[in-house]
């Protein structure tokens, strides 16, 4: 379970005035963050936060512990996101096929057999690649997007993801893998072709630069 959410719910249930005030801020931040990741826009994220936290106020004492309450909270937030009025402009309604996501032999032949020259920290800190990550997640069909966000961003375990999504653990794992592969492939494409050139750079010839990059990779791999 997301430790921050669970701690905030424990604080909220503690009845201690200072802990309650801290919990209000943490829960607002956590639910809004979840809404932004899933919906991709401020208005839906705010609606999700408001509705979810008002429902939490009505149900706070109905659960045996903070973990059960946290699972319920994510379930409510997920439902609010699914009901969001604004459709994501990125998300297609289709399912993801593993076969289609798998790299083709011709893609692998010219690709570097080495990890990316970038750390996970750089992915989330460098503006353009952070944008790619956000767009890649929002481009996932919602059932896949929700599983990836719950598991990898909110850090729920597989059982909790399955509970929130009301699916089997096997289905959660299947969706998670396809979602991760899909996001990974978007980042891979970006890191291989590089940032989109500015108009001035395009005049100089982006095709030539890509070829140079490809040769450099081949040389490094021997």
């Amino acid at each position, binding site marked *: 379970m997301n430790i921050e959410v669970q701690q905030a719910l424990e604080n909220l249930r503690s009845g201690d005035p200072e802990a309650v005030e801290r919990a*209000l801020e943490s829960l607002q931040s956590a639910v809004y963050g979840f809404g932004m990741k899933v919906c991709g826009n401020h208005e839906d994220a705010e609606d999700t936060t408001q509705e979810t936290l*008002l429902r939490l*106020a009505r149900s706070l004492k109905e659960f045996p512990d903070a973990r059960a309450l946290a699972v319920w909270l994510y379930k409510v937030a997920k439902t609010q996101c699914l009901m969001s009025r604004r459709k994501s402009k990125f998300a297609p309604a289709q399912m993801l096929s593993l076969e289609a996501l798998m*790299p083709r032999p011709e893609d*692998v032949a010219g690709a570097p057999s080495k*990890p990316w020259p970038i*750390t*996970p920290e750089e992915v989330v800190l460098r503006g353009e690649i952070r944008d790619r990550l956000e767009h890649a997640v929002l481009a996932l069909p919602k059932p896949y997007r929700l599983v990836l966000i719950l598991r990898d961003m909110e850090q729920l375990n597989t059982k909790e993801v399955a509970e929130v999504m009301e699916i089997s653990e096997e289905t959660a794992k299947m969706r998670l893998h396809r979602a991760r592969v899909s*996001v*990974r492939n978007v980042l891979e494409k970006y890191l291989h072709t590089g940032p989109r050139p500015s108009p001035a750079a395009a005049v100089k010839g982006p095709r030539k630069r890509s070829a140079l990059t490809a040769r450099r990779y081949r040389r490094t791999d021997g």
Partner: protein
Amino acid sequence: MADRRCKQIFAALSEFLDGELPVKHCRELEEHLEGCKPCLAYLETLRTTIQACRKYRVHKAPRPSPRVRAALRKAAFRS
């Protein structure tokens, strides 16, 4: 990822990274990775993707509305 074995490995990479793959299958996967550079590179880039997702944070949340604050305070202090 040219052969059938690579396809099988590809399907199991997330479970492997999450430590949810049975031990027997882990050993088979590791043996394959030792001799297959494309699969190993794919695994590492998938790992970087997952770690990036774990580090991703939404920058700024607005403050809770007065209505939400009041409702949660009331619920928290209700006996």
